[in-house]
Each structure stands twice: as C-alpha cells, then as structure tokens.
C-alpha cells in the first residue's frame, strides 16, 4: 500500500507541476467565463446601452410629464442603487419651459449633442403632445431601435400615469402600476407531465455530461501517454522490479484521477470567482441593470445543482475515470508508439463516444427506455446518469444501483487491465493481435 501511494504521489505531482496543467487550469475558467459573459455583455449592451438615459428632455407640457419620463428611464436602466446615489450617472436632464422657449432650446441642445462625450440626444414634449400624442426625438442614437423603443415605452408609461392622475387615481396606485415588474418562471410540460425546470435543467444536464466526457477523455488519454512513456523509455522494468504491476497501474490511475479532480475543483472555483466578480463589472460596463451582481443576472442557474447531485457527479467521475483510464492504460501497455496507441485505444474510445451519441435522445426523453438502459451500463452510466439527474429527478435507489454496477464494472476493468498491463509492459516488438492479448489475459 505504501508503494501505491508513492506511485500515485509521483503521478500527481509530476502532472500538476507540468506547464500544461497550469495553462489548462487557468485557460478553461477564462473560456467558461467568456462563454457566459460575452453573449450576456452583447445582450446587455443592446438592451440598455448608456444612451437612453443620457438625454435631455425638453418639456413644454407644463404637466410634469418630462419628469415622469425621466424617472421611468432612470428606473429601467439604473444599475446598482449605490451608483445612482453617488450620482455618477446623472440620468435624463429635464428642462421645463414654455412653448415659446422651445425653438431656442432645441437649437442650443442640438449644439450640445454635437459635442463629444456629452448628452446623446433630446426628447421634445410640446404643449400639443398630450392631445396629439406626438413626440419628437433627435440625437446621435436616433437609429438605435433599442434606445428608441425605450424612450417610446417610457413616454407611453408616463402618459398612462398622467391620464390616470387626471381620472383621479391615487398617486400611490399610479406608482404601483408603473413600477409593476413581473417574474416569470418557465416549466416544461411534455407527454409525461411536468418535465423538470425547463431550460436550466437542460443546461445543467448537458453541462455535467460534457464536463464528465471531457475530463474522462482528457485524463484517460494522459494515463495512456504516461504508460506509453514508461514503456518506451524502458523505465517500466526498473519500476516493476520494485512494485507489482497491479499496484503500479492502480497508483497511476489514482494519481491521474486526483489530478482530474483537482483540475475540476479549480475550474469550478475559478469560474465561479470570475463570474461573480467580473460579471457585474463587465455587465455594468455594458450598462445592464444588475441587482446584486449574482450569476443569476446572466441567466445561469445553479439552483438545480444540489449537494446530492454534486456528490453523484464526483462519484460517477471517479468510477467512469477508473473504468476508462485502466482500459486505456492497458491499451498503452500493448504498444510501442503513439500511433499504435491511438489505434489500440480505439475500441475503448468507441465505448465512450458511443455513449455520447445517445445524449440527444436522453435530453429529449430523460425518463425513456434508452436513458434508463444507458444509465445502468457501466461504460455509459458515468456520463448518462448524472446528466439524467440534472434533467429530471431520478429515484435514489436507481442511482445507488447504477453506482453499484459501475463499481462492479470498475473491478472487472481493473482486473482485465492489470492482466494485459503485466504482460504488455515487457513486450517489445510488433503490435499484438487481439488473439494474443486474449492469451495474455488467460495466462498472466
């Protein structure tokens, strides 16, 4: 057992020390953050801009309509309340005047807009606005559909307020109506009834599946390369003279698996850090309204990720990794070159990629027969089962059973791999045929 730790420790430390590990560990979270933030930023930029509230409102209605419009625009685009208080963004400037002053004011404001870094445009509410419902806007952003929609809807809302006031509605009621905001939750219903929590569940399920598939392929291939290196540098013979091949194999798989876990924990931690700390900054720079800078603001919901699911993901990763990594190690021990290794790894990779081909039908129908069967097979369940769990609730008994089958699959895979490995590590020369490998397994 001591030697197992020595092997695992070397495997772990050498991999974690490598430049590749450091680069990948930092790069992936940046990529994940960018994947979320760039579309969110673009959307936020389009939705708010900085323009719609940075305008001048020339109000000649004499009814306070301009101030109402300004308040509504401010509320829609305001970011953190603290910032509003600090008056970093002054918001629309309302200039009340008589109809006679309007023409001169329009001229001077036009010149103001022409200067860079000042107000972007002005809205004219003249004395006929209330009766004719005509408003005018002029500005640098006059062709922005989003901005114009904002202005139009703000004026419409302000109109409603003024009209309600005229009808004698209480100011509190008016304020309630104009501040009304809705929160809609989306739930999917299909032929089996309510299908989990819609979009977020699909996001979570597929995310888990992709992460597991990628990690297993990635770190599994690393084990294969490590075995191949030990064989081609001939260091294997020295090592095997000190430690049983089974222990060496187990130590290598454990070490590489620990690297995988470390990397994933770092990925999640760094991504979460980047998203929570940079999302508000990035989105604020896009002018998006963010209540408290949570990841919810950019449409990511971790709500479905319960502790139970998290533990299941970790367990399935470990089982899936042990299963595939030992088989890949066996494949690596059979051959002498990188090309041959890829060929020897093919059958193993087919199992993994083959499972992935069914992902679509699992997403469409997470409780269907395909999904159920695949979540019980030891080679596909490490990916399919956690995905299903993300998509819709799975009875805990099924999860426990599938984990047990996985564990059994791992024992078989390790046993098989150890027998191939034991013989393969000392075999040089031509690539063995399948029949020869079968003989190794029988005689080892």
């Amino acid at each position, binding site marked *: 057992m001591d030697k197992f730790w020595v*092997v695992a420790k070397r495997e772990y430390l*050498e991999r974690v020390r490598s430049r590749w590990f450091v680069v990948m560990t930092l790069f992936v979270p940046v990529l994940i953050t960018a994947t979320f933030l760039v579309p969110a930023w673009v959307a936020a930029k389009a939705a708010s801009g900085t323009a719609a509230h940075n305008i001048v409102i020339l109000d000649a209605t004499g009814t306070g309509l301009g101030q109402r419009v300004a308040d509504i625009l401010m509320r829609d685009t305001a970011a953190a309340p603290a910032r509003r208080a600090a008056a970093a963004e002054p918001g629309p400037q309302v200039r009340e005047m008589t109809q006679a002053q309007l023409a001169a004011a329009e001229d001077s404001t036009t010149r103001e807009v022409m200067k860079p870094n000042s107000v972007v445009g002005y809205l004219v509410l003249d004395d006929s606005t209330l009766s004719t419902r005509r408003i005018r806007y002029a500005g640098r952003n006059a062709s922005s559909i989003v901005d114009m929609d904002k202005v139009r809807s703000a004026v419409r809302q302000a109109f409603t307020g003024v009209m309600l006031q005229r009808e004698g509605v209480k100011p509190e009621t008016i304020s309630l109506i104009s501040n009304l905001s809705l929160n809609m939750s989306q739930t999917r219903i299909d032929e089996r009834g309510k299908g989990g929590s819609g979009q977020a569940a699909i996001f979570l399920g597929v995310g888990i599946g992709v992460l597991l598939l990628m990690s297993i392929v990635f770190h599994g291939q690393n084990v294969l390369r490590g075995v191949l290196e030990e064989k081609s*540098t001939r260091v294997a*013979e*020295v*090592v095997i003279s*000190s430690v049983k091949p089974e222990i060496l194999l187990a130590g290598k798989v454990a070490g590489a698996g620990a690297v995988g876990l470390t990397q994933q924990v770092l990925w999640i931690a760094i991504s979460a850090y980047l998203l929570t700390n940079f999302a508000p900054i990035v989105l604020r720079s896009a002018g998006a309204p963010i209540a408290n800078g949570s990841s919810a603001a950019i449409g990511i919901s971790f709500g479905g990720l319960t502790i139970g699911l998290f533990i299941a993901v970790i367990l399935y990763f470990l089982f899936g990794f042990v299963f595939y990594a030992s088989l890949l190690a066996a494949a690596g021990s059979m051959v002498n070159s990188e090309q041959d290794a890829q060929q020897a790894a093919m059958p193993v990779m087919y199992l993994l990629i083959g499972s992935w081909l069914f992902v679509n039908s699992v997403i469409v129908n997470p409780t269907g027969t395909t999904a159920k069967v695949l979540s019980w097979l030891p080679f596909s369940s490490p990916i399919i089962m956690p995905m299903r769990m993300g998509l819709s609730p799975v009875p805990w008994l099924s999860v426990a059973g599938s984990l047990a089958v996985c564990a059994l699959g791992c024992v078989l895979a390790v046993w098989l791999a150890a027998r191939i490995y034991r013989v393969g590590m*000392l075999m040089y020369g031509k690539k063995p045929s399948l029949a020869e490998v079968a003989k190794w397994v029988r005689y080892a």
Partner: protein
Amino acid sequence: MQGNDLAIDVRGITKRYEEHVAVRDLSLQVPRGSVYGLLGPNGAGKTTTIRMLLDIIKPDAGSIAIFGRPSTESGLLNRVGYLPEERGLYRKMQVRRVLRFLAELKGVKPAEADKRIDEWLQRFGLTTKEKDWGNSKIDELSRGMQQKVQFIATLLHDPELVILDEPFSGLDPINAQALKDAVVELKRRGHTVIFSTHVMENAERMCDAVCIIARGEKVLDGLVTEVRTSSGRRNVALALAVDSGTLAARENGVGHVLSDPRLVKRFDDNNRYFEIELAPGADAQELLHKLIEAGARIERFELVLPSLHQIFIERVGATGVETGMSGHG
C-alpha cells in the same frame, strides 16, 4: 551449501513461451557475498532468468528463494537492486525526483533518500561547484551521465543483492571502470552481486563463480577457478611482438609450428595473442624452442589455465549460439 548462506537458491525453474522454451529446468545457487556471473550467448535465457529472480515474470515450474525466502514474499525485493539491460528513466523528471521516487519504491524514507542522493551525486561527479545536475531534467543529461544516474538508482537503497543485466553494454571505458570499482566495493562490504554478460573477459576478471547457460539450459557452473582447472588441460598464453620481421615470420614459421599436432591440439588466433591448448603429452618447452627457431619475437609465453572464453566456446559451441539467437533473451 545451506539455504541461509545462499543469496539465491533457484531450483528447477522453467519458462515456456508459445513457440519455445526460454529457460528449462535451471538450478543455481549463489553464495552470499560473492560476485556471480551469469554467462551465455545472446538469447540464452539470461534476461528471462533474471526477470524470474525479480518476480517480474513467473516461472512455469520450479522455485526461487532469495535469502532463504520465496521471492514472491512482500518486501523482499526492497533488499534487491536491479539494473536492467535496457536502461531508461522518466525523461521529463528532475534527476533528484527520479532518484527519490525509485528509492521510495524500495522503502527508503524521503529524508534519508535525499541525503543519500546528495552523497551519490557528489561521488559520481554529478554535482560540482559549477553545476548541480541533480536539478536538471533527465533528458538534459548526456548519455554517460544518464547511465550514472541509473546506476545510482540501482544502489540508492543499499541493496544486499545487486542484479545487473549486461551492465557493461554501452558503457564508455570511464563508466565501465566506475561500475567495476562499485562492484568490488559492494563485494568488500559483504553484498552479493550477480551480473549477466556475454563478455567472458569481464566475468573471468570479476566473478567468484559463474554459471554458463545456453538455449535456456545450464551448461556448467561453479567457482571460476574450479571451472578452469576442471578441464584438466594445459594452455599456453602466447603474445608476439610486432615488427616488420615478425610479420613475415608469422606467415611462415609460427603458423607452421602451431599446426603441428604433436605439440598443439588447437589454438585461438587473435592476431597478436594466441591461446594455445597443448596436445596431450606435449612439452611446452619444446613449443617455445620451435617458435624461437621459427623467428617469432616473443613478448609473453605463459602456462595458464584455459580461459572462460575458451571453455565457453568449447562447451557452448557455435551451434548453441546460433539456435540461442532466435530466442527472446
């Protein structure tokens, strides 16, 4: 010899592969504290035998005891150091880390390993004032330095039994000398060294006892002096000085004398050096006389025991080498 006096006691081991038998019913006893040579042509089964000693491969039949205990016993191999014929280390790893890893695999504690690594690196000139190669990666080292590191790895855990497979192959003269010195030192400290080789001169100079195997079977074994005297033959070692005169003399006279069946049974011509087996009843004095008469300028003329090389050639024979060659080592 009793079990406790033996570093290795092998009884009737056999290893069969699909198409051939690599080792057949081989028994050998290696006394503690001896330097033991495992001799044989390429493909005779030396490496297979060594791998079975180290429990890397399992014999199909027979038993192996190391220090009187079955070789499969856990922890036993911590007392054995092994230098395989095909050498190599983790290329991308730092020298110190490789050595510490291999030492830890033999049960040495990291702190103790670090201490010993420093001593060995210094002793082999891998840490000097200008450069500490211990912090370099293996693939930054020259081939000669890599060989040194590998040799350190074999001895770092101070093994009581050291098994070296073809240790001299690929060594430059300086490293070969260092290796020879190390073997002598191990022996002086009471450790046991086994090495395989097909270079008889090394074995003859270094080994207390040898075992010659061919085609997977033992041809003979025993103490080197016994092996050499047991043939009961008298040999002459003859060395000729070279100058323009003797070149002609050799062509005519010397060749003629050595072909005389009354004096010489057979001889091994190495150009300047001859190993001559005297014919039964022949007088060495007469041979010397005839050689001088024939005009040979003699540098050395000595009555000697037959060399291992000659015994090897005689006992294994050309056929043994050829059939052995097709095997797997």
